[in-house]
């Protein structure tokens, strides 16, 4: 193969891979951000160094969040002081809590169980311990 041809082929292959990555992430991200209309809103507030939650009916919880299997939930994420990041790794729920902003994330748990909640943005002294848990229960109603 000629001197330049090899390089052009190489660059073309790289670009093809990148186009694939780009298009695929566009498609997936579009789907991920498409919040179902019937999702129930949960307000999530981060502050140094714990999470608190408010359900649509006004019930409040601290650190442990109870949700029902088979429902879609939309989180409205706030911060009271510095930046935090609300994260349920097992369900790929992840969005920053930024003071002065309202951010969103959603998911629909389809398995019962207890899952860790954590903070994924450095927020000072006890950032490492800003942990909670999500309890997904069977919907008995």
């Amino acid at each position, binding site marked *: 193969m000629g*001197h330049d041809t*090899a*390089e052009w082929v*190489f*660059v073309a292959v*790289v*670009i093809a*891979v*990148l186009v694939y*990555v*780009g298009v*695929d*992430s*566009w498609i*997936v*991200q*579009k789907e*991920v*951000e498409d919040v179902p209309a019937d999702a129930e809103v949960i307000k999530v507030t981060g502050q*140094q160094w714990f999470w608190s939650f408010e359900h649509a009916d006004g019930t409040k919880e601290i650190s442990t969040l109870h949700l029902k299997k088979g429902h879609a939930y939309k989180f409205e994420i706030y911060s009271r*002081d*510095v*930046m935090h*990041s609300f*994260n349920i*790794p*097992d369900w*790929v729920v*992840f*969005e*920053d809590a*930024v*003071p*002065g*902003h*309202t*951010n*969103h994330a959603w998911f629909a748990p389809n398995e019962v169980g207890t899952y*860790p909640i*954590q*903070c*994924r*943005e*450095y*927020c*000072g*002294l*006890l*950032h*490492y*311990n800003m*942990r909670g848990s999500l309890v997904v229960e069977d919907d008995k109603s």
Partner: protein
Amino acid sequence: MVLELQKPRPVWQIMFSTHHTDVGYLYTITGLTFLFMAGVLAMIIRTHLFFPGEGVLVSDSATFNRIFTVHGLTMLFLFALPVANGIGNILVPIMVRYKDMAYPKLNAIAFWMNPVGGALLWLGFADVSWVSYAPYSIIRAPGPAADMFIFGMKILGISSILSSINFVVTVLKCKHPDLSLRRVPLFAWSMLTVSLMTLIAMPTYAAALIMMLTDRLGLSGFFNPFAGGDPIAYLHLFWFTFHPEVYIFLLPAIGMMYEIIPRFSRKPLYSQASGVFAFVMLGIIGFASWGHHMYSTGMDFTTKVVFMIGTLAAVPASGMHVFNFLATMWGARIRFAAPMKFAVGGIALFFSAGAGGVLNSAMPLDFISHGTYWVVGHMHLFLTGTIGFGFVAMVYYMFPYITGRMYSEKWANVHFIGMFWGTVQVFFTQHLLGLEGMPRRIYDYPPEFTSWTQLNQIATVGAWILGASFAVFLASLIYYSAKGKPANMDDPWGLGGKYYYPVAAKNPHGGHSGY
């Protein structure tokens, strides 16, 4: 390369010199000193994380937070930048055939700002993390540490602007008229590119730092949501500077590989033009991707897509360097002496780091990796794996020219195996830890998370290997600069054929037909 260190001189003569090689030595030695200081911090961090829940070595999170902050700041601004500037100072004037840097006094001033900035960072020992996100850095970070951090970074930022002005003028204005810009060796091109990038990128951060200071003093509220400001504005200003800055850290190391690889392959470089093109491309497109650090801040879909495209668009330029290196080595009679081993090892790690970077840029995947150990692994594959390897290769390469003696190839090999092994073991493992969901910058983690514990322990053992390899490096630098065999200055590695060395190695003021 000029051989001035060979004849013993009092240290103060070097310290108060403005000659480019002396300033170059000062930069390089300062950079390497800070490398070992920050390396000790890294060993403390990794050893601490070996034992969850025990508080080994560091018994409170306040200290831990300060340690990882100063580790990161030191490695980036007091190791990576100074060493690049040091090698740049020694080589760039020679490569463009000029007697010195364009502004020798400015050059010395820019250097001496480094110890001052470094002292402020180390004496303050702030806990803001290297990104120092608002509003933590404004409303919560304890002073005077955070204020000393601001002043330290301010000084280092100005230093980097001054030295960039110097490199730009040296290459563009002082270059020998017979030497066309295209034929300027690629290492000098890399310094030119990163200097221009610094001039565009750094003022933004310099402004953001002053805004942070006035916010901290309560005089303004630019980034403080409780005074009408917005922390996201800080993130934009920060990453507008520091995404380009990651290429500013990277390109000099790539430039060093361009010096080493053809020489030890005993072949001309595959393509000078493609190297120049890739540098300039990356220098421009590097400014279009800063938002990939902010996907999860609540950025809307379209903005995320734009920054993703900007990020991916910069990747082919990096790929072209890899191709250029491989094509140069293809079918060559390679001499695997220490500089070549480190350069080739660096390229392999560069490639894997780039592949990981592409995964970060894909928006949905970034929601898995952002803020986890994946990102720590990613950046360290570049910073240790590529930049560290490139710099170490260059230090071995310059060793005979500077000291007149030869290092020991055997101990260099021990260093190489340890460093490569260690790098892979720590930083690949950190990618896995990220996938397991472990957040970065955490002082401790629940011992009942057994997969985290195991992976952390594997990473820590890797870090010990890496650390040990650097102890070998330090010891052999010191020992062989005094006791090494005198080097054959015509051909220290026995490559055969004078063509393969910069002619200046033997004759600092002579011609450069070798290029």
